[in-house]
């Protein structure tokens, strides 16, 4: 791919503290002192900060980076929309809070990625597309999320199975993205990876509990994993875009995450005395805008109010 256009020099010297703090970390990415659970004003990277950098021209992704950010943003947005449904419906109050928290984290990542992606895309009036332009005014085939994220919540075990796959995948991805040559991607990943680490812990603990709890829960856990596993393969599929970005050091090839993903999820499954589901792989296609039947309903609900009042601000 082409060299990222984000001017890291400018970000260092004139950018607001957040992103530049992130880039000053020793590994070239992320603010290692930020906490996932404590509000750290001045350090926590907010979507509004990225929007500011976009407006002032400090952050401008290449077309490739923008397309890539759109993919990751859509993954997180669709998952947040799914998880939000659990709030007030979870098996215990503690899980209303936990799943709500994970949904909020994902929504935060989505907002950052989409804001950044929008910087390389323009509305009819020439302004950059905002996170809301992208979330509310694109149609089904314009979404770039892989199909795993739009899979229905199912029962709690199915949701945990999806969380298990997603959190281990996102952790491997974001961990590597903190070293991206694109300063903004690296900064978003640096914040996200800490949060996703907790998501891993949450899902792994529930895999163990449900698999080792009662006969009923074990049966449901196995079923949940079998329901989600056909969509795992798509996460690790390379294409021209990821090849170009990986070559330039701005992103990582999805296929390169698979070995660690297999090993780490394998360890949890082994402890839970579960097997990796032996199910046929679905063809996927979300990155090219080919989705399952489920996404249309999800978007219809998510977008309805915004589309009733085009141009309104909220």
């Amino acid at each position, binding site marked *: 791919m082409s060299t990222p256009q984000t001017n890291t020099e400018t970000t260092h010297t004139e950018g607001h503290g957040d992103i530049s703090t992130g880039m000053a970390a020793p590994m070239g990415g992320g603010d290692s002192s930020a906490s996932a659970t404590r509000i750290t004003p001045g350090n926590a990277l907010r979507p509004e900060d990225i929007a500011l950098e976009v407006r002032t021209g400090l952050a401008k992704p290449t077309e490739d980076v923008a397309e890539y950010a759109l993919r990751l943003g859509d993954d997180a947005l669709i998952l947040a929309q799914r998880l939000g449904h659990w709030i007030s419906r979870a098996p215990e109050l503690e899980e209303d*809070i936990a799943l709500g928290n994970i949904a*909020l984290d994902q929504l935060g990542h989505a907002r950052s990625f989409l804001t950044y992606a929008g910087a390389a895309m323009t509305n009819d009036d020439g302004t950059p597309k905002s996170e809301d332009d992208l979330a509310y005014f694109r149609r089904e085939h314009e979404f770039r999320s892989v199909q795993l994220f739009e899979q229905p919540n199912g029962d709690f075990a199915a949701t945990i199975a999806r969380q298990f796959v997603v959190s281990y995948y996102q952790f491997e991805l974001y961990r590597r993205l903190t070293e991206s040559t694109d300063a903004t991607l690296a900064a978003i990943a640096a914040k996200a990876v800490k949060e996703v680490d907790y998501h891993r812990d949450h899902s792994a603990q529930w895999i163990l509990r449900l698999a080792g*709890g009662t006969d009923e829960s074990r049966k449901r856990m196995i079923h949940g994993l079998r329901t989600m596993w056909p969509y795992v393969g798509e996460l690790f599929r390379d294409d021209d875009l990821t090849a170009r970005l990986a070559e330039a050091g701005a992103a990582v090839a999805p296929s390169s995450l698979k070995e660690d993903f297999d090993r780490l999820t394998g360890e949890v499954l082994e402890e839970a005395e579960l097997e990796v589901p032996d199910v046929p792989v679905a063809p996927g296609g979300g990155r090219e805008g080919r989705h399952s039947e489920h996404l249309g309903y999800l978007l219809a609900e998510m977008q309805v109010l915004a589309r009733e*009042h085009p141009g309104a601000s909220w």
Partner: protein
Amino acid sequence: MAAQNLQSVPAEPAANQAQAQAAQQEADAAGQAHFDRVIAEDSRIEPKDWMPAAYRKTLLRQVSQHGHSEIIGMQPEANWISRAPSLKRKSILMAKVQDEAGHGLYLYSAAETLGQSRDKMMDDLIAGKARYSSIFNYPALTWADMGAIGWLVDGAAICNQVPLCRASYGPYGRAMVRICKEESFHQRQGFEILLELSNGTAAQKQMAQDAVNRWYAPALMMFGPPDDDSPNSKQSMAWNIKRFSNDELRSRFVGMMVEQVRVLGLTLPDDQVRYNEDTKKWEHGPLDWHEFQEVLAGRGPCNAQRLERRREAHDDGAWVREAAAAYAAKQLNKQKEYAA
């Protein structure tokens, strides 16, 4: 002697029953004296302190109802999480409903210190035996309701709850401190939603006014029946649980709303709001207390829906809770075997 030690006077053999009874009476008298002194000093009663049975019962009812209100109160707002019109609003709304689950947890925990388990409280709620604030039996029909609920409902809740931070029962008062901080943020976000709508398109402004019109009277009724029809208030005030009367708090709330609604560029659906120079209190138009009683008795617009939703979540989650308990028990056994 510390009051908490008085409660655990060991049972005496049968031969000494009379003596034991006398000891118990003495302990109760000492406990009562300690309790009275704490109340007179406006200090705090803690879980292990002796307390009158009626005080315990009143508090348990109030704190558990408060907890139930938080949990049921998640539903009208959760109803708009999936449709929030911007990602920022979605994020704020999710965090708010999540806060309410947290409030429910603190309050149930505070209630547990009075001797009732969370399971029992949840069972009572689902069985329709326990009450919760009747406000949550009204439907959240439009996005503007997220604003009106935050501004009016959370606003009324804050008026009610700030004085509860000084409630004589320690765990309740302390829980309220944190809850009030979060509620105050909730109210501001509700106000901000309405302000944005009011300054938006004509359709948005109308949506905001409609929501204020629908939530105003139910919010005023959140303070409870008029003082001359509120039998429990007097005792609660004597125990330093309640600090101000229902009407006093309602009047204060109306005064606050009168100022704020002007900033919003909206109106209150009440042409009888006025400041009474003689009593130095804000007055409002008549409220439909028959409707209040009807909703309280289970005949409100959403009573059946709210309870069914809670019941469904509880029943659907039963296998998960059983699995977690079974797993924890197995782990404990493994540890014991390992240790042996």
